[in-house]
């Protein structure tokens, strides 16, 4: 066990390359490592989505070199139905776990949470280092499933039992593939639990002088709320994965019912509960959606405030709304299971809190819109992506009205409507949050600016492209287009194939735009213009320290905080913005006293 009592930054600055850049205890290095892992995972996930989209648009199109990935999965470079599902499962798993959880939460949170709270480091740096390396191992365990046995699992990222629990009789990838999947996710859970432990303790105990909880920036609050969700959600997913592995390798019957017959053979399991897996999974799964999106809300608010030169209408209301989302997210998970065979009365019981969750979401959107009013909005890549986030969040959010109602869910469940909904609201919106954070914080993380023209090109293609991809998903869903199909052979689906072709083209173009981002990221890291400590004239603590921040974040003297986080355009102040560390006396009636 790690020494729980060690105060932060008791570790001196490392000198060897390994301790500095590989097994580093420094939260900033760990944050960058998480970012790099997320970037790699995102590129793999995107490549998988390209392959899937091409297959959905032009089923017989041979993608050169694909057989190198799997000669049985893609004979003649054309995907087989099972390999499509296998790639789809990997796309979902990689994106949800290793991109949407790691990038906005673990990567940015690690880098900036201690700085924004005025801490020297996380309280348990060894746990923090373990958190990353455990996640790293989890990622490669998952990737390994491409190359062992008959490939990765085809059960979808939700991995419904009993298909996932019966072993290789279930189909290709259901043998070793599922075991690797569940192992990878269980490992990932451990990593995120260690991370959440650090995040929560940092927020509660490591704040510098004068940094009351309400003086924390919205990003810090978002990460704090996310880590509380992560702590509870991943602590439930891990035991579920352990039970799944046991069903698989030890022949237990947690999830596999009696008398199941496959290939004319009765399976040896008995009495397991099919719905148990779904309950455990979605108890994690729904908060996971908020784990992906709440950090984005924080980042977007933070970026917008700086670029609007005014604080949010109400700091507290935003915090309370995010907290309400977190609490409600545990009460609504059953809306994923309306037609699962669960008691129909509980469907109604889950429906109402789901509808209620639109209230805090609406408040958050109204806060953003109301704060835009009367602002001095500056347009740059970071603020464009933030505004794009709001647009995407609205578009993805309104479709939630439909899916929250069990009666309409009868028609829309498991169709592309659902796919469109969650891609917009937790995929694209969360990605836009990551992009906004990247453009905004890149100068602090590296000391250099990213290229604005490239950033804007990236934004325009991504914004229009994402709508071209995911809006039509909703139309397909309304027309009854079932998801997780590798080809559309049903009579009523054939007329929809042109829509799929359109989406494929849009997806390829949008994917290309992401390569611009990657180029921008790498080019600017080495060749971008060198920036000052506070290029955006921000007020929170990360802008009062040097760029890049020294090993203990603030150098010789630790900061003292005198103000609320966002003192912009304060009347009577000496400049447009008053930093949190500035002892200047200002007359702001809204500031906490």
């Amino acid at each position, binding site marked *: 066990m790690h020494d729980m009592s060690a105060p932060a930054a008791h570790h001196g600055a490392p000198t060897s390359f390994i301790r500095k850049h590989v097994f580093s205890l420094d939260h900033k290095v760990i944050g960058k490592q998480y970012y790099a892992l997320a970037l790699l995972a995102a590129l793999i996930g995107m490549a998988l989505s390209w392959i899937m989209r091409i297959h959905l648009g032009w089923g017989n199109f041979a993608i050169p070199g694909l057989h190198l990935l799997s000669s049985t999965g893609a004979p003649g470079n*054309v995907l*087989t139905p099972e390999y499509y599902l296998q790639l789809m499962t990997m796309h979902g798993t990689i994106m949800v776990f290793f991109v949407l959880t790691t990038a906005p939460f673990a990567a940015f949170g690690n880098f900036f949470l201690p700085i924004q709270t005025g801490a020297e480091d996380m309280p348990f740096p060894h746990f923090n280092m373990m958190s990353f390396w455990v996640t790293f191992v989890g990622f490669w365990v998952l990737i390994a499933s491409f190359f062992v046995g008959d490939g990765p699992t085809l059960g979808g990222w939700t991995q419904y039992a009993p298909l996932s629990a019966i072993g290789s009789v279930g189909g290709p990838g259901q043998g070793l593939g599922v075991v690797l999947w569940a192992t990878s996710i269980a490992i990932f859970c451990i990593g995120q639990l260690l991370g959440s432990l650090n995040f929560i303790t940092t927020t509660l105990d490591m704040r510098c002088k004068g940094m009351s909880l309400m003086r924390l920036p919205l990003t810090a609050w978002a990460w704090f709320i996310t880590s509380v969700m992560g702590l509870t959600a991943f602590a439930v997913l891990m035991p579920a994965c352990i039970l799944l592995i046991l069903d698989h390798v030890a022949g237990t019957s947690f999830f596999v019912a009696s008398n199941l017959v496959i*290939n004319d053979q009765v399976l040896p399991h008995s009495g397991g509960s099919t719905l148990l897996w779904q309950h455990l999974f979605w108890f994690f799964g729904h908060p996971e959606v908020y784990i992906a999106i709440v950090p984005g809300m924080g980042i977007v608010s933070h970026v917008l405030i700086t670029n609007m030169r005014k604080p949010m209408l109400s700091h507290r209301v935003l915090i309370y709304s995010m907290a309400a989302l977190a609490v409600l997210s545990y009460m609504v998970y059953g809306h994923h299971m309306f037609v699962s065979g669960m008691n129909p009365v509980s469907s109604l019981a889950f429906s109402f809190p789901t509808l209620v969750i639109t209230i805090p979401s609406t408040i958050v959107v109204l806060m953003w819109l109301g704060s835009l009013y009367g602002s001095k909005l500056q347009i740059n890549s970071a603020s464009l992506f933030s505004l794009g986030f709001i647009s995407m969040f609205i578009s993805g959010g309104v479709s939630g009205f439909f899916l929250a109602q069990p009666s309409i869910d009868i028609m829309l469940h498991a169709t592309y409507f659902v796919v469109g909904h969650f891609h917009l609201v937790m995929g694209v919106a969360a990605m836009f949050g990551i992009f906004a954070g990247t453009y905004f914080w890149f100068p602090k993380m590296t000391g250099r600016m990213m290229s604005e023209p490239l950033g804007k090109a990236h934004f325009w293609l991504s914004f229009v492209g994402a709508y071209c991809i995911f809006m039509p998903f909703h139309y397909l869903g309304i027309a009854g287009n079932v998801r997780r199909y590798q080809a559309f052979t049903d009579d009523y689906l054939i007329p929809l194939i042109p829509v799929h072709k359109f989406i494929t083209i849009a997806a390829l173009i949008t994917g290309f735009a992401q390569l611009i981002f990657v180029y921008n990221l790498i080019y600017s890291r080495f060749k971008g213009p060198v920036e000052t400590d506070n290029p955006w004239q921000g007020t929170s603590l990360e802008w009062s320290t040097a760029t890049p921040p020294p090993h203990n974040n603030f150098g010789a003297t630790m900061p003292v905080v005198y103000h609320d986080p966002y003192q912009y355009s304060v009347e009577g102040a000496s400049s447009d913005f008053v930093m949190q560390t500035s002892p200047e006396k200002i007359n702001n009636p809204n500031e906490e006293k």
Partner: protein
Amino acid sequence: MSKRYNFAAVLSAVVLICCGALILNQNVNAAGEGKITGTVKLDGPAPHMKGIDMGKDPYCAKAHANDPAHLETYVVGADGGLANVVVYISEGLSGSAAAESSATEPVFDQKNCMYTPHVLGLTVEQKFKVTTSDQTTHNIHPLPNPMTGNIPWNQSQPPGAAPVEKSWKAPEMIPVQCNIHPWMHGWFAVVKGPHATSDTKGTYTISNVPAGNYTVTAWQEAAGTQTQKVTVAAGGAGSANFTFKPK
């Protein structure tokens, strides 16, 4: 330089010897080997074979619109001849003859949502092809007993897809099925040495049998196995007729 010449010389020698061996081998076969022939019959009236309802897949249903498909557990000809019986030499073969595998590559076709042939006789390690003639996707899912060393596989074959080429490691009667069309059932009969499968008249001919005393086994997927002793003279023909009772 000289090393390379040496290598080339050795290589040519090896190739020559191999060719010679192949030619000699064929000569021996042609000169000294006989065959086993016979007829397989079913005792009593042909059992009722259930019709297959292909309503699930319009392509399949259309293919059988005028010619309803039936189960192929017993395919009985006009005069009681039983088809799809695999007859093979189960005892008496020398090691080399048993290990011998045929050079031809048999084809297991998926046609009109049925397997053609219903039973495919194969020798161990013999390569075979699974092809599809249908405009609908099939998945080929052989279910060998894992204890035998044969590895199960399960692979989809969409219309127009390239043939799947495989072979089996150990002798076994392996059921094969298509999960997409649950009625599609067939067999890979993997045996050692020469074998034959009876046609709709019930007749079969095992060729390339060296002279000797043998035990011949006939296997039918539902009725089981029967054995007989047969003697084959050099260049001559042995005979073994079988009669199965439906189970």
